[in-house]
């Protein structure tokens, strides 16, 4: 353990040294002169020297929107200049002994001055320590977001007051948030609805307003280099909104009376939202597919019966049994909930069970079914990792389940495989995701290969990621989604914001495959199922199709999924 952390530390050091070596050096005298000149030039604007006048006091209450009232051209610096524009120069200590002096002037995060104070021991090596010229070091700050991380911003749509931000460890500075919101609002005033933005390296920003009351903005840093990022972010925003409704109810969100109270209330959603953002639990793809992650128990009839009985006894029609966070059995009514609700309820239960309590009672609103009337979600932990829950008005004891402990243990034993052992998968299937398009359920698994092969197979985490990417890629490009049932007309019109590449095809795509250096992947769509497979590169390309069709027929035959 210590050696590995040592290694990491060493790597960091090497990286830092490399970076420093690559910095364009100038003489310290020159840099100092530059700085001095700059400081003199800007002395008038320096609050440290001149003090802060009351009109420019950054700590006044924010009034972002007032800047967008004037129509016509919106010069960038005005849009980007919220009230706190002249915040004092700020010292920020970086990890590696350098100090950055920077100013958020004009909200553009322009780096105005930067001193890199090298450690003193360098002095004896070089008579005049080399310093980075002021603006070169902008690279250090350039990326506010790490690669692949996602930021979520929530503001009130009418006034632009930030409600919360989640995601990425480092928060986006307020001016950025303000201007992100500002551009959308400015466009709205001009009859132009901004929906998304893309930058080099795959960075994406997606805007969405829900019910004219809440504005959600998702910002994802570059790095994933996939154009399909947008589809994921769109889905994320929908889910986040549904989460908020699930916890608080729609009324609370649409009739915002007290913003401060709402801010407090929203804190209760954070655990759920974080779960969506971070996708902590590997192998849960429901957020993406909007299909309930399921687990196919070895003895489905028994469990089904038990769940039905339990729900009935609890005087409810909605009941389900979760094993490892995946639905093993549920009542028919449960499946009739909108797919997104099923997915979100699973997420709620997962986060509740992560808290470790044996049972809990949680009020939920159903985003589509009953956004204004709360239900009680009762969750009981039967075994560690096995939860049963009902949406009910009354509660009942868990003794109902004692005869079934063995069956539940069997389910638990399945682990992440999700399928009973009776289903024999071909050995050359690395990972699979099978979706039943009718019932909106999905089964997924990644198989661990103990034997090291010559070109190393992708790790388990990478497999999950690849599976997700494959799903996003195929579903945005080729396989259209029909989710008409769970999408309200209003939302559908909003979804019209995103262009449908699929519609451009005159013939229907059925299957697709791609070959990369890492692995081969195959997607297949039939009237009822969608199957996504990852296979090692050693499988010949022409065999992919037969593997896929065979896998599909095997699973369907064995489990009736």
């Amino acid at each position, binding site marked *: 353990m210590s050696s590995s952390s040592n290694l990491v530390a060493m790597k960091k050091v090497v990286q830092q040294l490399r970076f420093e070596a690559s910095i364009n050096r100038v003489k310290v005298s020159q840099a100092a002169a530059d700085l001095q000149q700059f400081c003199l030039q800007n002395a008038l604007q320096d609050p440290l020297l001149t003090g802060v006048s009351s009109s420019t006091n950054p700590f006044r209450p924010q009034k972002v929107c007032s800047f967008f009232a004037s129509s016509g051209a919106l010069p*960038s610096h005005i849009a980007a200049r919220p009230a706190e524009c002249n915040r004092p120069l700020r010292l920020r200590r970086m990890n590696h002994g350098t100090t950055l002096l920077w100013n958020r002037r004009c909200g553009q995060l322009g780096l105005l001055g930067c001193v890199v104070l090298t450690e003193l021991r360098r002095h004896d090596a070089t008579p005049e320590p080399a310093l980075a010229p002021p603006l070169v070091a902008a690279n250090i700050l350039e990326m506010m977001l790490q690669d692949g991380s996602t930021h979520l911003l929530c503001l009130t749509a009418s006034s632009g007051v930030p409600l919360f931000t989640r995601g990425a460890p480092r928060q986006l500075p307020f001016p950025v948030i303000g201007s992100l919101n500002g551009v959308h609002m400015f466009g709205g005033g001009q009859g132009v609805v901004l*929906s998304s933005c893309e930058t080099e390296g795959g960075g994406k920003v997606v805007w969405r307003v829900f019910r004219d009351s809440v504005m959600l903005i998702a910002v994802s840093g570059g790095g994933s280099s996939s154009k399909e990022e947008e589809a994921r972010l769109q889905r994320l925003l929908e889910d986040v909104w549904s989460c908020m409704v699930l916890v608080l109810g729609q009324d609370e969100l649409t009739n915002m009376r007290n913003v401060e109270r709402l801010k407090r209330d929203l804190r209760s959603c954070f655990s759920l939202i974080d779960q969506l953002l971070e996708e902590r639990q590997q192998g849960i793809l429901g957020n993406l597919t909007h299909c309930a992650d399921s687990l196919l128990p070895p003895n489905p009839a028994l469990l089904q019966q038990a769940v039905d009985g339990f729900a009935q006894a609890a005087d409810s029609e909605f009941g389900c049994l979760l094993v490892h966070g995946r639905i093993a059995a549920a009542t028919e009514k449960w499946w009739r909930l909108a797919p997104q609700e099923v997915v979100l309820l699973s997420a709620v239960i997962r986060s509740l069970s992560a808290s470790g309590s044996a049972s809990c009672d949680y009020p939920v609103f159903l985003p589509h079914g009953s956004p204004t009337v709360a239900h009680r979600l009762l969750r009981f932990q039967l075994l560690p990792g096995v939860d049963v829950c009902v949406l009910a008005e009354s509660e009942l004891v868990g003794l109902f389940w004692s005869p079934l402990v063995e069956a539940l243990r069997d389910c638990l034993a399945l682990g992440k495989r999700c399928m009973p052992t009776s289903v024999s998968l071909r050995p050359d299937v690395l990972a699979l995701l099978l979706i039943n398009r009718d019932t909106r359920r999905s089964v997924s698994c990644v198989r661990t290969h103990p034997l090291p092969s010559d070109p190393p197979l992708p790790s388990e985490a990478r497999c999950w990621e690849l599976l997700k990417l494959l799903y996003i890629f195929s579903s945005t490009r080729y396989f259209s989604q029909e989710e008409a049932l769970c999408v309200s007309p209003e939302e559908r019109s909003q979804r019209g914001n995103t262009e449908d590449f699929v519609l451009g095809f005159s013939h229907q795509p059925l299957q697709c495959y*791609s070959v990369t250096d890492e692995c081969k992947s195959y997607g297949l769509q039939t009237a009822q199922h969608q199957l996504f497979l990852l296979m090692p590169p050693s499988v010949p390309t022409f065999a992919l199709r037969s593997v896929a069709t065979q896998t599909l027929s095997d699973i369907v035959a064995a489990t009736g999924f």
Partner: protein
Amino acid sequence: MANVPHGPVLCGPNPEVDGAENYSDHDSSASSHSSCDHSDDLEPEWLDDIQKNGELFYLELSEGEEEAALAQADASQGVSTNHVRFSEKEAEVITEQDQRQRGGSRAKGEPALKRLARILRRKRRPSQRRGGKDAGKDSSALSQPASILKNQPGPRPGVTVQQQQLKEVCVYLNPKRLGGVTTPLSFSGGLLEALLGVVHRPSWTRGQGDPTVSRGEERLTVHGLTPNSPAIKCGQILIGDVLVAVDDVDVTSENIERVLSCIPGPTQVRLTMETVAPVDGGNTGDTLSARKTKSSPPVSQLVRLLWGEDTAELQMSIGHIPHIVMYLSLKLDSASPQDEEEIYYQYPVSEASTQLKGVRGIFLTLCDMLENVTGGRIISSSLQLGKHLVHVGYWKESNNLLVVGLPAERVPLLYLQTVVGDVVRTLKVMYGSLDRAFCKADHAPRLDHFFCLFFQQLIQPSRLTDVSSAPSPDVSGTLFLDGLPAVRWLTLPPEIKMEVDTVLSDFESSDFGEMSEDFFGLRRLYVILGSCLFYKSYLIANHLPKEDLLDVCLYCQHYCLLPLASEQRVGQLVIWREVFPQQRASGGSTAPVFSQPQGRHFLLIVGLRHFMQCVLLEAGGCASQALGSPGPDCVYVDQVKATLLQLEVLEAGIEERLNAPPAPCLSCADWFLPAATTARDRLDSLASSSPVFSKLAGAVKGSSSGSRGRSLFGERSRRSSPQRSLSDSGSEGQMDAGSGSGSSVPPGFSPHSTPDSARKLGGRRDSLGSGGSDGSGGSGGHFKISRMKHPNPFYLGTLKKTLTERETEEMYNTMKLTSGAENTLFHYVLMETVQGIFIAPTHREVAQLSGSIHPQLIRNFHHCCLSIRAAFQQSLPARGRRAADRPQGAGWGLGPLKEHGVLFQCKPENWTDQRKPAPTMTYWVIGRMLLEPVPQEFYVCFHDSVAEVPVEMAFRLSFGLAL
């Protein structure tokens, strides 16, 4: 000319100029075109068009094109009632049009009518135009006198239709000549004389009152004609005629100067003349045919766009679709009170674009901000404007930002970046840099034209192409093929290729007469860096480095020169302009030993009929320095022309290649779809042309007999393919199939095709009879379990299966790309990244296959290629820089993509049979990126029955590619 190589020659009466300039006139053009190509001692036609900055864009249509257009126009004008010249069918159409026209609704419907509508929409000529000469005029004047006289405030005294007849004359006027020609504007004649060539002496100079003078305004009687003027060239304006109106504007001596001065640029105007009825009644037959040639030629929208006419009208038609281009400054002085100061350039002006312009603050802010947030420059954003989804592409250069907004339904987001990148590159090639392009005020009209072309091509490509050529433009196809960093290549037989190359090399050596330095003892003006040759939009020879080729090609693509040359459209094309080849401009030579000479570069494009040669010239370096903005040099233009004329000898050979059966033989998708599911149905359908079948074929177009013919055609060719597979030599079978599918025969009926197909039909019955249920069962079964087994949909399929793989492979090792017994290849595109060329089946090969599903399939193929190529592009940077230093598991997409395939299923449209499910056909579209041995991208589309290895196919295709 030899003595005075440069510098314009002002000469006297010149019939050549006439033919070139005066589009309306055909009496003279017949003689001119053939000879003008070689005018060594005459002033070249294009000399007048050279602009002040030395640029030249001179386009002249070929004669055949004009006449064809004329015939069509004449037919659709439908003014007179005599249509005996036309065949029965057309005559019907015409009368119908006549009726409609009289009824006042003249638009929409048949293509001919559309054409008419377009003609009628021509700028400044709102009503029917009749090029009536002599006797033709009386019928026309009688039929619709209203249009001529409609603007008249009252009845004109002295004008009686019986005696004084009106005629309309179209002449081509070019005000720009006035500047170049040193003729002083005569005190008396003014513009009327200088521009039009009509001499009119006002009454006071003549000393005697004209009887037709009214209220001080004097009627414009033609007293004389100046030589070499448009008026005399058209041959219809006679001395004694009275000029009544110009483009329906009444003119008198008072306002004629004002009216004429309003003509902004070279254009055609319609003069209404009153004449004293010198009707020679004897030759009515003659006048009819004269009429035909006399009406002004309607040229396609594209050509007129290139000429710079009509842009406003075209732009109006897409005004409701939001699109915009803006060039904005990012550097803003906050104190500047002025509005819109940051906009350097903006186009077009429409409601939707004004809205987009209004929100430019969004673009500026996003561009500023996002770079800091996500660490990359902004590429695109999407916004909803009314009902339209608009994608906005960004291009930042130094402190300025180019913003291009395009409707999403035309340009998928996946390809937006390529489109924007191409525009930027074209602009840079033309102007050197974006700043230079946009920040000069006098560039604005040219940029307007540039972007008008750009948007027209993207948003309504159908308007630009001829009605006849492409029924439904393949938007994603054009996007994909134009977006490839490559030029479409036509493989030629080696001997022709060699000759072409030799001729080009001879030219490029510039080792002859006037171009050699010894001739005048001077440094030569330009060094020929290289040239490339297009034939009918295919590149057939290239002696340019790849990047230069792409630059040149981008320019050609932008100005639609390639499709222009592919039909018989170009009589003569001369383009000259300074260019800034990107490779050279950036000084990007990596080798430190060789540094590019710093010179100026000029692009010379000369087109003659189907040939087009692009020459890149360099001034400076080892040639003499270019000073100012030199215009095209006659010597060079003439030499290119000579080269092209030399190459015309080879045209037959190239045509032969184009007519030859496709080199890797192609199948038509329709052959793989059964007409019906059972043999009985099939027989029925053949016997009585079942609804399905006729619909399938009829979807293309044409009369019932035509569709029937085509369906038989399809069947026949389909049957011919098993035959081919049995014959010993692939090439022989090829020829057979090629001729069978009627390469040069139009898709109707050729006289001997009917019995032929009937015979085939009989043979088919026979085979079904003898084969019995076996054959039908086989074919029926194929579609049920096509995925698993029975890859061969044909009757002989099972027979063929008995042959070993090896034998079959030997049989078609040369001609066939796909493996297996049948040829299952539908379409392909192979791009050689290094050479910057790609090959694909020629337009003619595709047209030969006809079919109703096939065009759909090709559209689909291209759309899918967009996706595949986008995926390849995405993975390229990942392959390059990220692969090494990226930790495993961190999100970097799907990883470097090598091969990507999609399986499609297609069904015949409007399948009426309720009882049975529609037959389906499945096919693959696969893209493969090869890095070894040479970087290639290969896209292929083939039937599902045989598993293919794309690498092998690509190799087979590229092997022996004559480069």
